[in-house]
């Protein structure tokens, strides 16, 4: 075989291909207990027993001929790339369904290895599988694994390496259909060989013939210039339909399932109670999917999640705050007075230190998200919410990208690939940025803590709920604006509940922590420096009054409390004017009229403008501006005095909804394959944010 040998991991969605990929290659690709977590090919090269291997994790498919857009990446790979070895990953607990794909893979004629994954669940359920018999029936080695526990990985690698160094069998296994089907296949095959003499091996021409009879549009399109052939296929199809009262695709599918059912009767033995294995899932679903309790429980779980994110996070946050304070004091004292001192203390330390304190909140949020997606509850949530979301022209499965959006909008936009319908996917992509990503969390924790300390957790929860509502309302609007119609069918497998491994949960948290620290030391650090310079320069400001002289006059007066107050007022007025006339102040003041109706000051406008880059910068901007102005590091205190609560709510709402960060805008442009939609997303979200913030400040103003 070629070097390196390409080994494709192919299986049903949620069969564990990606876990296996991680176990084989040491990669850390995202895994969860719902379908279609992996939406693009993952490739890694390793060497085993001296054989270089190129391992490809193919996004899950149920069939190689379904032509659903969400299976396109996987199908195209198998048809187009022709890997050297296919590792067919089967969820051993769901063999009845997953052997269907195996029958199709057999027909590709490619060398295969069959993996029975999640064997631990099967053993626990008292099921025994005769792997030797299965291997001979499938014409491939069979390896039992439990990818999450890294069991059977060595055996699989050995099997792959062994297969890579032998020549594949000349006459691989072949599935037999009934005589009518076989005759039709034979005739199409002959026609194909005539059209492509010498080009097609018998295995390949049989495979093509079956695909064409199945009605595979892709293969048919490929042969569309051979009018006769297409006509013949149609003729065969109608003849078969006439004879069997079923279309050809159904006949072939039934035959495939008949093969796998017969096979399973021979190789599988149930010991004890067959329902014992998934009993726990049943009990849990009686509770979580209860017709009256289900939805309130979902809300409750989300509330607990955000409350805990706020209140549990507060404890380690205090330690980090103390650490930041200590470091700032130290730097303040060691560095000599001057511009560099100011840059470090009021720019870098204020901006970076003001943001890093939110690290615990972020990590806790990701802990909960790992639990929700790893246990299989997220799949249930989309089931529970489908009806409600359907009213808004959305699909239950849209909930998965939406919840992913609570982490970061970029993967959320990518996760919309689970949505089959193109238009539905575009709508999901455009509402994804409304999801309250973890970059916005610091803003809400800061504001909720400053203005609504008693109910801060609930305020944070409310912002998340508002983000969901904003998404739903937008979906309704977009459904009217965007031409076309039609949604998706809700077809979703509900996986059994599984306990996420400690490793995967910790990895999720570690990953989020690393990502956040990288952001703080990257974009936040640079942002803080840039903001500091923008608010420090130009230095040759013409003040409205001669502060120097007035201050000097005041200082010369004899000491008194009045003198102290007057001096303080003068200095603060000077600092204020200096800021307002800085580059930052001037540009923010230029756009402030836009935000005046919302009650925002120029400082708020400055924070909003810088937040375009990344929303964490909003907090950093406040930290830098206020560090300069008040010389105080108690951001919370300062903020509380800077605006009324109603304006704080308006600001939170505006931050929640206005244009996503640059990375999200870029990914929308890429995934929608149109910059117009990315531009639309920016314009739409700005308008929406402005209107809602206005409403909030007006309504809030009368109540608070």
């Amino acid at each position, binding site marked *: 075989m070629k070097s390196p040998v390409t080994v494709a991991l192919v299986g049903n969605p949620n069969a564990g291909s990606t876990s296996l990929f991680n176990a084989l290659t040491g990669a850390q690709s995202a895994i969860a207990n719902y379908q279609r977590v992996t939406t693009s090919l993952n490739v890694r090269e390793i060497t085993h027993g001296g054989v270089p291997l190129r391992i490809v994790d193919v996004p899950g498919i*149920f*069939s190689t*001929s*379904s*032509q*659903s857009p969400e299976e396109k990446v996987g199908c195209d790979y198998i048809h187009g790339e022709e890997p050297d070895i296919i590792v067919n990953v089967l969820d051993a*607990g*769901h*063999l*009845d*369904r997953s052997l*269907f*794909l195996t029958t199709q893979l057999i027909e590709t004629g490619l060398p295969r290895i069959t993996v029975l994954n999640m064997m631990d669940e099967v053993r626990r359920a008292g099921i025994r599988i005769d792997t030797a018999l299965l291997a001979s029936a499938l014409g491939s080695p069979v390896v039992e694994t439990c990818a999450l526990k890294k069991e059977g990985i060595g055996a699989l690698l050995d099997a792959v390496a062994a297969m890579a160094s032998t020549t594949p069998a000349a006459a691989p296994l072949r599935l037999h259909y009934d005589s009518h089907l076989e005759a039709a296949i034979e005739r199409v095959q002959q026609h194909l060989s005539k059209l492509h003499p010498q080009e097609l091996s018998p295995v390949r021409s049989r495979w093509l013939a079956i695909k064409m009879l*199945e*009605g595979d549009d892709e293969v048919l399109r490929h042969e569309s210039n051979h009018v006769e052939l297409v006509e013949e296929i149609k003729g065969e199809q109608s003849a078969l339909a006439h004879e069997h009262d*079923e279309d050809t*695709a*159904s006949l072939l*599918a*039934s035959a495939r*399932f008949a093969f796998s059912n017969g096979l399973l009767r021979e190789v599988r033995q149930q010991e004890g109670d067959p329902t014992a294995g998934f009993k726990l899932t049943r009990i849990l*679903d009686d509770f979580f*999917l209860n*017709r*009256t309790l*289900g*939805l309130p429980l979902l809300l409750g779980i989300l509330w607990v999640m955000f409350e805990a994110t706020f209140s549990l996070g507060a404890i380690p946050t205090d330690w980090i705050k103390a650490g930041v304070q200590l470091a700032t004091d130290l730097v303040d004292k060691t560095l000599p007075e001057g511009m560099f001192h100011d840059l470090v203390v009021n720019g870098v330390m204020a901006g970076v230190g003001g943001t890093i304190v939110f690290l615990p909140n972020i990590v806790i949020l990701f802990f909960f998200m790992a639990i929700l997606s790893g246990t299989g509850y997220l799949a249930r949530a989309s*089931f*529970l919410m*489908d*009806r*409600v979301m*359907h009213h808004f022209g959305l699909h*239950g499965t849209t909930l998965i990208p939406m919840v992913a959006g609570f982490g970061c909008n970029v993967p959320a936009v990518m996760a919309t690939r689970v949505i089959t319908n193109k238009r539905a996917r575009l709508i999901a992509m455009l509402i994804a940025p409304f999801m309250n990503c973890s970059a916005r969390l610091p803003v809400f924790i800061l504001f909720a803590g400053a203005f609504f300390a008693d109910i801060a957790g609930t305020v944070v929860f409310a912002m998340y709920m508002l983000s969901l509502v904003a998404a739903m309302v937008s979906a309704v609007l977009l459904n009217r604006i965007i031409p076309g119609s039609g949604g998706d*069918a*809700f*077809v*979703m*497998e*509900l996986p059994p509940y599984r306990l996420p491994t400690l490793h995967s949960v910790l990895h999720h948290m570690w990953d989020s922590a690393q990502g956040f620290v990288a952001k703080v030391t990257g974009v936040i650090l640079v942002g803080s420096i840039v903001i500091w310079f923008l608010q420090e320069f130009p230095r040759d400001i013409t003040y409205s009054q001669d502060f120097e002289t007035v201050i000097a006059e005041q200082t010369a007066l004899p000491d008194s409390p009045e003198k102290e107050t007057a001096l303080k007022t003068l200095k603060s007025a000077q600092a204020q004017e200096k800021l307002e006339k800085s580059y930052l102040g001037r540009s923010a003041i230029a756009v402030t009229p836009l935000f005046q109706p919302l009650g925002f000051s120029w400082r708020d406008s400055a924070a909003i403008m810088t937040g375009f880059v990344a929303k964490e910068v909003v907090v950093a901007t406040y930290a830098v501006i206020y560090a300069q102005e008040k010389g105080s590091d108690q951001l919370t205190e300062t903020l509380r005095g800077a605006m009324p609560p109603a304006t704080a709510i308006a600001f939170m709402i505006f931050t929640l909804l206005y244009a996503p960060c640059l990375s999200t805008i870029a990914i929308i442009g890429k995934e929608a394959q149109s910059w117009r939609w990315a531009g639309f997303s920016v314009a739409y979200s700005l308008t929406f944010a402005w209107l809602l913030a206005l409403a909030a400040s007006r309504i809030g103003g009368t109540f608070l």
Partner: protein
Amino acid sequence: MDQQVKIDTLTLADLRPEQQGEIVKIETEDGVFKRRMQSLGVVSGTAVTLDRSAPLGDPRIYSLMGYSLGLRNAEARQIRIRLK
């Protein structure tokens, strides 16, 4: 005769929790949906039961081939069944 008509029009959406059904055929012009359902085991002869319904009665979870499949009633109505 009446009995015959009734059986012929029975769909997956009509299945009650205590009943045992068997797939007869998928009635749709949508080839992609049909192949998708077939690849999930919805083929003639497959035994199916109703597991539970969502809070508003739609979608519902069916049990077939040893796994749970969530489907909206609109789709379930395109799948003809007979009772066992």
